[in-house]
């Protein structure tokens, strides 16, 4: 079976700086894959290329959905890529801070709903029904992610951990096939991290989502992932199961420095 995400020899240059260098990566359906590497390795840049925020200098990105349909993501606008089934969260939280928690998730439903300007003005039956459906669906997602108690709060007033969860909730509202999480546990305490671990597993098991995550918390990475990709200086330096990666001398060197 084809992997759900297939990235071939992707390069990204910022002026003279090569942030991504001939990177290959694939995520199979139903997998949890981790992308790790020291700060500045190019992990976020990789996400930005895949989600269309940056246009990669060279290389190919393909999405193969369950029905066996393949589409190239190269040159697509970010919103088109989201429509195709790729959703992401941001390392530096980017919530719609002046909107309520519910509204944040409702925005995520945008690409799966159709109400037009005329629908908004005349509020025909279809629009009203769709709107009710969006509210119900959004609240359901909040419950699933475990932040439904904040439903009417402004997003900016949420505690940090809940903000990270709201980012996930919002991404789920776009009905993705593959979820990209950029350091979802950053700034969380051990308890919150543990709950996040459970949430991610639950999303994979119950929703059939595939997940690619960037994370620094090694305990989380080792317990969660089916496979791990390790990057340094824009290149892939290792890949394999958690056990393989842990023993890999190249990885140890990259993390602990040359003199270890």
């Amino acid at each position: 079976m084809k992997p759900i995400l297939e990235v071939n020899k992707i390069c990204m240059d910022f002026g003279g700086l090569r942030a991504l260098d001939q990177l290959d990566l694939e995520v199979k359906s139903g997998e949890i894959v981790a992308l790790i590497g020291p700060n500045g390795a190019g992990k976020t840049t990789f996400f930005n290329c895949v989600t269309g925020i940056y246009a990669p200098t060279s290389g190919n990105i393909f999405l193969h959905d369950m029905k066996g349909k393949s589409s190239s993501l190269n040159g697509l606008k970010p919103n088109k890529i989201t429509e195709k089934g790729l959703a992401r969260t941001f390392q530096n939280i980017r919530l719609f801070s002046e909107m309520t928690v519910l509204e944040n998730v409702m925005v995520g439903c945008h690409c799966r709903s159709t109400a037009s300007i005329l629908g908004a003005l005349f509020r025909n039956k279809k629009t009203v029904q769709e709107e009710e459906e969006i509210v119900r669906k959004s609240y359901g997602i909040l419950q699933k992610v475990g932040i439904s108690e904040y439903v009417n709060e402004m997003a900016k007033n949420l505690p940090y951990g809940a903000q990270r969860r709201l980012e996930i909730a919002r991404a789920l509202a776009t009905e993705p096939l593959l979820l990209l999480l950029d350091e979802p546990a950053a700034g969380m305490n051990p308890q919150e991290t543990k709950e996040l671990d459970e949430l991610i597993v639950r999303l994979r098991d119950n929703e059939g989502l595939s997940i690619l995550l960037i994370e620094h918390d090694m305990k989380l990475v080792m317990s969660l992932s089916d496979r791990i990709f390790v990057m340094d200086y824009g290149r892939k330096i290792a890949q394999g199961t958690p056990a393989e990666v842990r023993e890999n001398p190249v990885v140890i060197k990259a993390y602990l420095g040359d003199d270890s």
Partner: protein
Amino acid sequence: MIIVDYLKKSFFVAIWFMFLTFPIMVIRVDSIEGIVEWRWQNMLLVGIGSFILSLVGRYIRIKQEKAARSVQKGRVQQLKSSLLIDPKMYLPGLALISLLVLVFPFLFSVYQTNIMTTALMYIVLGLGLNIVVGLAGLLDLGYVAFYAVGAYCYALLNHHFGLSFWLALPLGALLGALFGIVLGFPVLRLRGDYLAIVTLGFGEIIRLVLENWNEFSFGPSGIANIDRPNFFGIDMSLNESIIALYYMMVCLVLFSIFMVNRLQSSRIGRAWIALREDEIACQAMGIDKTKTKLTAFALGATWAGMVGVIFAAKTTFVNPASFTFLESAIILSIVVLGGMGSIVGVVVGALVLILLPEYLRAFSDYRMLLFGAIMVIMMVFRPQGIIGNVRKSYLFQEKKG
């Protein structure tokens, strides 16, 4: 101890002000007599004045901070939102306002009614610009261009073909929307300050074209003798038609409030706000940035086009001088003063900004000064606008049982 501290701070502020204003307030050189006059009493006045103002300002700020810290804040905010949301509280108020609006032309002179009509026109303009600036967060300084498009649309069609006002009204709206899209395209990639500068340029370009393209727009002399709106074929005196226009404007205001309200609490409205809050996250949610921006420009410009037609019909004369940057600035001030993104805010902002200068004509010398002072005070104490963020948001309640 704190009081002494504040007294001390205010004292230094006063000293500082006395020093700053010394050259203009105290020294006066009489060039005829060739002597220097020292007006020490002015210095004393400046000192006392700034001391008191500074103390009052500090006092207000302490109170605000205290309120923010204590639980009371919850109650104050609750009261504020309930005033605007709870039907029991606002229905009587609304009824009173409606009554006042209805009988206004009979209570006040035709002159006053005319001013009120102007204020109502600015409410609609503000509501339109509010879509672009308040909701979608696109700082548009050339909004007056669409106003001009509407006005010239009616003026020219009426002049050449005798087109009636009622046909021109939807046409002006449509043309406004069209220009919104056309002018929106080139600025799609711009944001913030750059967007502001380019839209300002567009506004000026439209005005300059109207001023210089004599064959088309009759240049600076403009177009006169435009027909007033005809209401059901009734022959009306000038006064009657002013009153009729007032009622028509009331209807248009209600209509646009209704429409804008529906727009902002819809799928498209959420997309606008998301775009304002974070462009990248907005796109990552699957929202088409280009389409969302263009609809904001188009739907914002629609109202300007419509009010433009009404303006031409009301004054029966248009020329480019009515569509300067100052006009854009006033409409923008209405949105900012009232509170970005809030419909009630725009209504209040328009009434304050249009009516206040009219009624301050008595103090015409100080009018702009007062106007400026109000704006500065607003920015210091209520940067979120008079009404602030009372956008109706979705309050979710779980169904019981």
